[in-house]
């Protein structure tokens, strides 16, 4: 698939000397949903800001649809919609007017029917004549999305779209995102909610301290990491794993009171029955059992921790 966004050796150093991005390379495919995960201050927003034109890159190049974002900014920006992280709206504007304004700013001819369509899709139609300041936080976030969609972008950036948003809006947002994907829109979202990436992304990128640590297909990533672990709490602590259990590749808990058995849920046989049988034969008595699924969160936390 062709890349719609191409980032090459992108570096950004702010005037304070803080290096927010360190030679980042990233190819974003047309029509995909890419989730960028990373802790606060990782460089997610800086990267998006550089693509959209809010931040000037220190070095490197960004292409959107084959055009350079600095030299050919009209061609790139008209294809991009941005939903910023902060709720930034003019308090005294009316909802319908502010969305119409956004469309005009991007050089598109007025299209009240299209604006109505987006407002209805985002459950904002009955608020169209309200002043923005009278809206709730969730509604304001919907207005930001409507503004970003007003000029029918090919690429949509959602910077932490569901930070501080209730469950209902989060679900609505996900459904809007999947509708857009069906229309062929490429979506890049940053989040530190791993569940969000798990729920809607096609690919996941992990960014930390200005560097991209990994970009991978979500399904592959999950399959690779999609293991389950059985934790067995022991009645008496042990110092070493008994010989009889050597074939199970167990881990011994730090206090010697637990054993961890890792297995693949996709295998025909997980080996749990045999393991528990052998555990008893080895004379170990258990007090509790628990299973845990490894998630993107584990992967994410693991990766971010590995790089101090």
């Amino acid at each position, binding site marked *: 698939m062709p890349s719609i966004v191409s980032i090459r050796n992108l570096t950004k150093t*702010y005037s304070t000397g803080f290096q927010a991005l360190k030679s980042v390379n990233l190819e974003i495919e047309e029509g995909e949903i890419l989730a960028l995960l990373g802790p606060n201050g990782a460089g997610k927003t800086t990267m998006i800001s550089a693509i959209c034109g*809010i931040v*000037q890159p220190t070095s490197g190049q960004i292409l959107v649809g084959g055009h350079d974002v600095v030299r050919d900014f009209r061609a790139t920006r008209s294809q*991009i919609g941005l939903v910023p992280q902060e709720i930034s709206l*003019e308090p005294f*504007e009316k909802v319908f007017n502010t969305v*119409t*304004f956004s469309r005009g*700013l*991007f050089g598109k001819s007025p299209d009240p029917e299209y604006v109505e369509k987006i407002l209805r899709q985002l459950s904002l139609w009955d608020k169209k004549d309200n002043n923005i300041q009278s809206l709730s936080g969730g509604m304001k976030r919907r207005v930001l999305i409507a503004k970003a969609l007003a000029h029918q972008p090919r690429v949509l950036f959602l910077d932490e779209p569901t930070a501080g948003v209730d469950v209902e809006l989060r679900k609505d947002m996900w459904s809007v995102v999947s509708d857009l994907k069906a229309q062929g829109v490429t979506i890049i979202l940053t989040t530190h909610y791993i569940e969000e990436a798990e729920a809607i992304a096609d690919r996941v990128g992990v960014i930390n301290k200005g560097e991209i640590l990994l970009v991978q297909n979500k399904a592959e990533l999950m399959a690779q990491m999609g293991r389950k672990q059985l934790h067995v709490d022991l009645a008496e602590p042990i110092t070493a794993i008994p010989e009889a259990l050597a074939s199970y590749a167990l881990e011994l808990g730090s206090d010697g009171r637990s054993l961890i058995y890792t297995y693949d849920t996709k295998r025909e046989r997980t080996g749990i029955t045999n393991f528990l049988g052998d555990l008893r034969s080895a004379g170990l008595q258990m007090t509790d059992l628990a299973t845990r699924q490894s998630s993107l969160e584990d992967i994410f936390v693991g990766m971010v921790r590995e790089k101090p």
Partner: protein
Amino acid sequence: MNFRAINVIYRKEMARFFRTIIESLISPVISTSLYFVVFGAAIGSKIEQVNGVTYGAFIVPGLIMLTVITQSVSNASFAINFPKFTGTIYELLTAPVSYMEIVIGYVGAAATKSILIGLVILATAFAFVDLPIAHPVAMLALLALTSASFSLFGFIIGIWAKDFQQLQLIPLLVLTPLIFLGGSFYSVDMLPGVWRTIALFNPVVYLMSVFRWSFFDTADVPIAVSLLAIAAFTGLCLAAVWWIFRTGWRIRQ
């Protein structure tokens, strides 16, 4: 050129003006009337004619300039500072608009407002004094030019100011003294020798002089010098705006 963007910026700014039309127009009308009562009627009756014009009429061009300059600066500086304050400037920065288009939209709207206010003050003045207008076309052109150049100046202040206090700083500390000392209410010829020389360093003097000429056909300084000074000021503001956008100063990190 993204004409649609210029159009929506201009119209949004004008809509803001018309939303508060009463406040926007009534305050200059009231303050102008007060000046007429105080300077024109009360003090003016004790002053003989200035350059053959009654004092009440003499101060009209000065009053118009005073209001047009302050309104231009405050409108344009607020118009661009408010989006910086609310964060909505992100949209301008991510839209396919050039700097020139942003400036035309914002400065054009601020200048339009000032011209309207200037005309309202002029109409109010007619209610108080007999007012000749020797060169009406030049008068309107000067009104438009002053509105545009000081709106441009206000735009620069709006980008520079980090908060609302700073937004008030330049108008209060620099502009008001320059306007008052620039001959709004007197002819610089009335100043004693050394002060007259000092006054000639004040750019507002040139503006005031040529604007008063468009009414009464007499000027403190030659018209050509005045026009040159205004052109220089406008050119300086344009250069500053060009530099601001080229470097992204206080806009793009």
